[in-house]
């Protein structure tokens, strides 16, 4: 009886330590996943850490050098010390970006469903790498020399979705009065987060870089409606007025706005 109690107690102790550790190692939001990866929380559940995606990536035909050997693959398997969930695939654009292969070799090999093939299928039911949403390129304008007025379109040229994911916006340079700014603008509905722009960026530390969607994107919330957008306006077609009733609403707005308020 006493030994069973001891076993149960020690198991509870182990469970607390183990849960705490597992929960901590899960939290690494600054990580870029392969194309088609489920949202990070689901991805960490689903990924069985087999490495088939990384093997398909490094051994793809387009990765062969002339002598038959391979270049380093895009996808790495997280090792101890990488500070990402161990054994899961990720990539670092400045080292090797995702080249957005037409045949997407990394996704169909995934046995567990962590890389979700249906999410990459187009209307013709073909794999379409342009549907990938690995992350979003973000420009830091203070270090981007194009924003200084120096001519540079390295990221724009490097983008596989040229003139779609990154466009150049022309602006007059008022400082000189006779030159133009060619400003890179990223479009988040097109950008896949491949990172070719980040790798191509000429500044010492890239002024354009890919962040995971969860980090890079804000969210307006469903209560903001684009009244000028017919489709968005549809969302509130059947909306009913909600009358808020509280202490304040008993008076007219003008009354309490004119009142002195103590903070």
């Amino acid at each position, binding site marked *: 009886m006493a030994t069973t109690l001891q*076993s149960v107690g*020690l*198991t509870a102790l*182990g*469970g607390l330590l*183990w*849960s705490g*550790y*597992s*929960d901590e*190692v*899960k939290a690494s939001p600054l990580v870029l996943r392969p194309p088609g990866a489920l949202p990070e*929380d*689901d991805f*960490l*559940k*689903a990924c*069985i*850490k*087999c*490495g*088939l995606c*990384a*093997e398909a990536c*490094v*051994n793809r035909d387009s990765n062969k050098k002339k002598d038959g050997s*391979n270049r380093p693959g895009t996808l*790495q*398997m997280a*090792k*101890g*010390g*990488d500070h990402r*969930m*161990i*054994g899961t695939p990720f990539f670092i654009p400045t080292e090797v970006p995702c080249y957005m292969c037409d045949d997407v070799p990394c996704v169909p*090999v*995934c*046995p*567990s*469903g962590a890389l979700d093939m249906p999410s990459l299928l187009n209307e013709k039911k073909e794999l379409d790498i342009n549907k990938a949403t690995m992350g979003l390129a973000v420009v830091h304008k203070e270090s981007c020399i194009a924003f200084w007025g120096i001519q540079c379109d390295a990221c724009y040229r490097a983008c596989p979705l040229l003139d779609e994911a990154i466009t150049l916006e022309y602006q007059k340079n008022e400082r000189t009065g006779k030159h133009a700014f060619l400003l890179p603008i990223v479009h988040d509905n097109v950008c896949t987060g491949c990172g070719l722009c980040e790798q191509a960026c000429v500044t010492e530390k890239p002024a354009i870089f890919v962040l995971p969607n969860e980090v890079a994107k804000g969210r307006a919330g469903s209560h903001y409606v684009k009244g000028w957008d017919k489709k968005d306006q549809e969302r509130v077609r059947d909306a009913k007025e909600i009358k808020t009733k509280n202490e304040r609403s008993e008076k007219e707005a003008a009354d309490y706005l004119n009142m002195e308020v103590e903070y």
Partner: protein
Amino acid sequence: MKNIKYLLLRRVTQFTLLFLYFGANAYGWHMLEGTFGASRLFGLIPLADPYTAVQVLASGFVLGADVLLGALIITVFYMVVGGRAFCSWVCPINMVTDLANWLRRRLKLDKDEVNYRFIKRRARYWIMVLGIVVSAVVGVAAFEVLSPITIMQRGIVFGFGAGVSVIIAIFLFDLFGVKNGWCGHLCPLGAAYSVIGSKSIVRVEHNHTNCTNCMDCKVVCPENQVLHMINKSSISVTDGECTNCGRCVDVCNDDALGFSIRSFTKK
């Protein structure tokens, strides 16, 4: 040669499998791709680790058919044929703990009573169940975030990084801490294979009439509680904790131990 027949066979098997896995990444071979979590044999047949699959299911994710089928294939193989053979014929950590155990005998550490007995052999079954519970609570396959087995295998295939410290830790634990500490007391995957393989047909059989009670087998056996019949009765080792490593068969000079097919009829 006679004394290391099965040891050599096991090492050849372990190295061959690891080399095939390594080649799948390094040279693009399609013999055995992936890692233990999930693999593909000949670019076609899915294989998967049943304990990992159960953890992922417990975390609340409905796994792809490939992994489920693969886990079924592996389960059936060890359940019917291999027993707990994964541990001694496939797992790379086995080489680490075997080395630690050999050194431990060489350094006569157990003679000086430094064998810490605070962990019971049945601890692994608690850990096995706990791994599934923690997976469900935290929402991630819990053993896979620290499993030295897959850390070592991925280390061999993709590069170790700081993961090598985990392997050294296991080595030190088995050498200076608990005898057969990792494989025989803690590893939940070994526990899972003990359960899965407990009724398998390939078994070590003891011939009591040939036995001279030298106890060499019990010295080398990493799970020597399964050899309770030595010099007592001529029966098979039917305990699921036996890893079918064959070291006892190797070291027996009296022809009292050998592999056989389990007999299901009572003698």
